[in-house]
């Protein structure tokens, strides 16, 4: 299975190098990848039907508990076959749809990458690994949505989608981590055994919220749904594959997968029902107002996703079964409709429903596919969709408040019927407008895939046994439900049939009376400011504004503010620490020990400092600074440090000289800051000074350790052959310091040299560009 997952990645990597060969006529060959995977997974059906679960483990980062534990069970299988099967058709379709496109190779690369990631998501048993693949699907989606990267709207949609699904991914990560922490394992399979302790844990609500966050963003639940209509900027094969059939179902997959781990609590169920229910209604109503075929499809996809969440929320065996079956139904008919839309778009150049009609005359196979898909999507017998609708009503009737929930379901289904018909039927019925008379017939690879899918819609409806045995039973047992079910198309006359009839009737009435128009689109767009999308964008803008504000407050360009902040920070925390625990004992004896020399020197220094700080002449300031240096030098003499005194003195003078050499090039002092600022600075500086003084005094009270000095004193002549201990330390005991020190000096000299001799300005740059030839 590792190879199966990696195959897509390898394929896309290879495309980087061999892409140019696959761009032309060989493009169709790329479908071999998903096709072979499809057959690979088909191979497992007998084993799974026999109740087996296939596991394969590969170590990856065992020290973090993250391994590639692939598990293929009934649930995974549904998704795997969908991913590879629809994938194969999409690959084929694309080879014709984007024939001769400059970047066809890239497109296949993204698709392959996506397919592999998606397989990873549904096969991973390790929840962190699942997250890893989950993020990869987001990225591939980003690239696919932004495929037409010259179009600003396309780029914007891509960024919005990555923002939302990326954020959701992080929620999944954190949810997974807590889950791992609570259950002690990252393996979902192992978590099953700990169901009770997980839902009893204090973190349960948190975990569920995070997981919901991930699933709702990925599966476009209200209020995160708006990225999906935006994602329709992607080429139609992408919308088909990612944004209806597979990727958006990853959230559903996650919810299904975790139902036995986290489910069966009221919190879980009610939240899902509410969110799912609201989403499906909201989106279904929105679909009424759209004129772009893809827009309609996008909202109807959101509706379907809401429906799925809703079903999972009901949480009974029947509803889970309904959800699983509906996933397949939706994948089949929605993929068909998307492909149909793609063909219409490809051939006529428009997706505007106001303009399209009567196309059956120019593209019969497509019309057939569209109509079958629409029927299936509307739940009209004998299609697969009808089977699904039955199951939905069956489970809604068993739920906590059957009437309300069923009513919502019925209403939604009516609207879904409208959406399916508007896309699958409307463009093909009626009169063919004149400007479409000459539309070319689509090629084989364009019409065959949707037709094939449409036929499947019909086939599964007629032979529900395939579904029951191959998918439904293994799936239910994988989720820990009893697999004792029997699917059939005809249940006899009962309430459910009645509901279906109402649905179909109502839906057809809506279809008859509402027609897509620009007016209604404009009408709904008036309320755009209230939509989650606008709220999200406004929120994003205010974050941006806040960031601007915060950044310009701190990074304001004024060096003195930076310094002020830093010193303030230091004074605050060090002062806090020192003052709260201060136990300084003033040692008056030490005061008495101060002699006249110290006082004199200190006075000289003080005068120097005052002059340096307050002088209005630069030269006086520099000279006073020199004075301070000399006083320090005398201190050194007084305390027995002649080497230091010499060096300090020489250095100090050299510094003053350097200053003097450059000073006359510099401007005169100006009084640049006002009194208030100066007082503030003064207070801060003084508090730092006091802090340092206190610290020094406090340290001086501590016992002293002289062992190092003693070692040097004892060994410097006998072992290191020198009598001036300071010098011996410098060139021997701590010679490494000196080696670096002279390196510092060297670098400084080079720096000064370069700084003064080398000036690259615009002029030199220009010269430099003439220089190019030399460089060549």
């Amino acid at each position, binding site marked *: 299975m590792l190879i199966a997952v990696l195959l897509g990645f390898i394929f896309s990597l290879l495309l980087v190098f061999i892409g140019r060969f696959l761009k032309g006529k060989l493009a169709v060959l790329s479908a071999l990848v998903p096709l072979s995977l499809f057959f690979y997974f088909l191979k497992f059906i007998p084993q799974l039907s026999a109740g087996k679960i296939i596991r394969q483990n590969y170590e990856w980062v065992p020290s973090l508990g993250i391994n590639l534990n692939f598990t293929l069970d009934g649930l995974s299988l549904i998704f795997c076959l969908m991913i590879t099967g629809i994938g194969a058709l999409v690959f084929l379709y694309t080879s014709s749809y984007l024939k001769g496109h400059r970047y066809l190779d890239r497109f296949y690369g993204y698709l392959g990458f996506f397919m592999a990631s998606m397989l990873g998501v549904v096969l991973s048993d390790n929840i962190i690994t699942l997250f890893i693949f989950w993020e990869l699907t987001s990225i591939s989606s980003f690239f696919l949505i932004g495929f037409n990267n010259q179009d600003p709207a396309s780029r914007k949609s891509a960024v919005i989608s990555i923002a939302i699904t990326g954020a959701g991914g992080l929620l999944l990560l954190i949810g997974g981590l807590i889950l791992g922490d609570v259950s002690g394992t990252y393996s979902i399979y192992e978590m099953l055994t700990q169901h009770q302790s997980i839902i009893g844990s204090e973190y349960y609500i948190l975990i569920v919220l995070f997981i919901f966050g991930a699933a709702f963003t990925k599966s476009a639940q209200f209020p995160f749904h708006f990225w999906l209509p935006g994602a329709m900027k992607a080429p139609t094969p992408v919308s088909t594959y990612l944004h209806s059939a597979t990727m958006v179902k990853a959230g559903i997959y996650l919810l299904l997968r975790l139902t036995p781990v986290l489910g069966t609590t009221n919190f879980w169920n009610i939240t899902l029902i509410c969110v799912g229910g609201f989403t499906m209604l909201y989106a279904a109503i929105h679909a009424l107002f759209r004129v772009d075929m893809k827009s309609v499809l996008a909202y109807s996809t959101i509706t379907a996703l809401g429906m799925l969440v809703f079903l999972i929320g009901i949480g009974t065996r029947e509803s889970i079964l309904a959800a699983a079956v509906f996933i397949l139904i939706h994948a089949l008919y929605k993929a068909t409709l998307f492909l149909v839309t793609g063909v219409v778009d490809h051939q006529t150049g428009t997706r505007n429903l106001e303009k399209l009609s009567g196309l059956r005359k120019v593209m019969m196979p497509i019309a057939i596919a569209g109509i079958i898909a629409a029927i299936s999507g509307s739940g009209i017998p004998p299609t697969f969709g009808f089977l699904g609708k039955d199951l939905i009503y069956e489970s809604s009737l068993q739920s906590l408040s059957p009437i309300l929930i069923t009513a919502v379901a019925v209403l939604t289904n009516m609207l879904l019927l409208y959406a399916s018909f508007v896309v699958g039927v409307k463009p093909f019925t009626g009169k063919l407008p004149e400007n479409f008379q000459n539309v070319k017939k689509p090629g084989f690879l364009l019409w065959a895939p949707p037709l094939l899918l449409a036929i499947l819609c019909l086939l599964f409806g007629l032979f529900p046994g395939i579904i029951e045995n191959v998918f439904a039973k293994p799936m239910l047992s994988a989720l820990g439900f009893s697999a004792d079910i029997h699917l059939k198309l005809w249940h006899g006359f009962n309430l459910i049939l009645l509901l279906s009839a109402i649905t179909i009737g109502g839906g057809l009435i809506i279809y008859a009376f509402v027609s897509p128009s620009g007016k209604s689109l404009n009408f709904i767009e008036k309320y755009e400011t209230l939509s989650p999308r606008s709220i999200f964008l406004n929120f994003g803008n205010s974050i941006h504004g806040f960031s601007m504000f915060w950044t310009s407050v701190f990074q304001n360009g004024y060096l003195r503010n930076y310094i002020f902040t830093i010193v303030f920070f230091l004074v605050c925390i060090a002062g806090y620490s020192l003052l709260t625990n201060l136990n300084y004992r003033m040692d008056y004896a030490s005061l008495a020990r101060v002699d*006249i*020399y110290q006082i*004199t020197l200190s006075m*000289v220094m003080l*005068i120097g400092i005052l*002059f340096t700080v307050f002088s209005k*002449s630069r*030269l*006086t300031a520099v*000279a006073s600074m*020199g*004075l301070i240096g*000399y006083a320090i*030098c*005398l201190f050194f*003499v*007084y305390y*027995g440090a*002649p080497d230091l*005194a*010499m060096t300090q*003195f*020489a250095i100090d*003078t050299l510094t*003053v*000289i350097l200053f*003097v*050499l450059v*000073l*006359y090039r510099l401007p005169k002092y100006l009084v640049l800051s006002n009194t208030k600022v100066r007082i503030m600075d003064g207070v801060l500086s003084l508090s730092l000074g006091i802090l340092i003084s206190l610290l020094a005094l406090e340290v001086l009270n501590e016992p002293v350790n002289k062992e190092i000095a003693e070692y040097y004193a004892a060994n410097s002549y006998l072992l290191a052959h020198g009598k001036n201990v300071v010098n011996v330390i410098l060139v021997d005991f701590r010679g490494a310091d000196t080696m670096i020190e002279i390196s510092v000096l060297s670098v400084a000299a080079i720096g000064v040299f370069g700084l003064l001799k080398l000036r690259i300005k615009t002029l030199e740059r220009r010269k430099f560009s003439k220089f190019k030839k030399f460089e060549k």
Partner: protein
Amino acid sequence: MTINEYIEFIILPILGVSIVLVGFRFLMGPTIADRIIALDLLITIGSGIICIYSLFANEPVLLDVAMILALIAFLSTVAFSYYLKKRKKK
């Protein structure tokens, strides 16, 4: 009165007073040249003090410091004059 006491109570105070006087002029100015001279003088007196202090502390090693002081003081005065002139030129 030993020589040490003599130095401590007579000579060093005299030199100290001198330092203070020169320091006073350093503060007063009024011209930059005056400050430069004051600085030069301070260093020179400083080297004298170090010299006497080395006698007082019986540390001939400190004489070397006095020597460096004298040398560098010269350099600094030269530099300052250089500056004064250059500044004028500008």
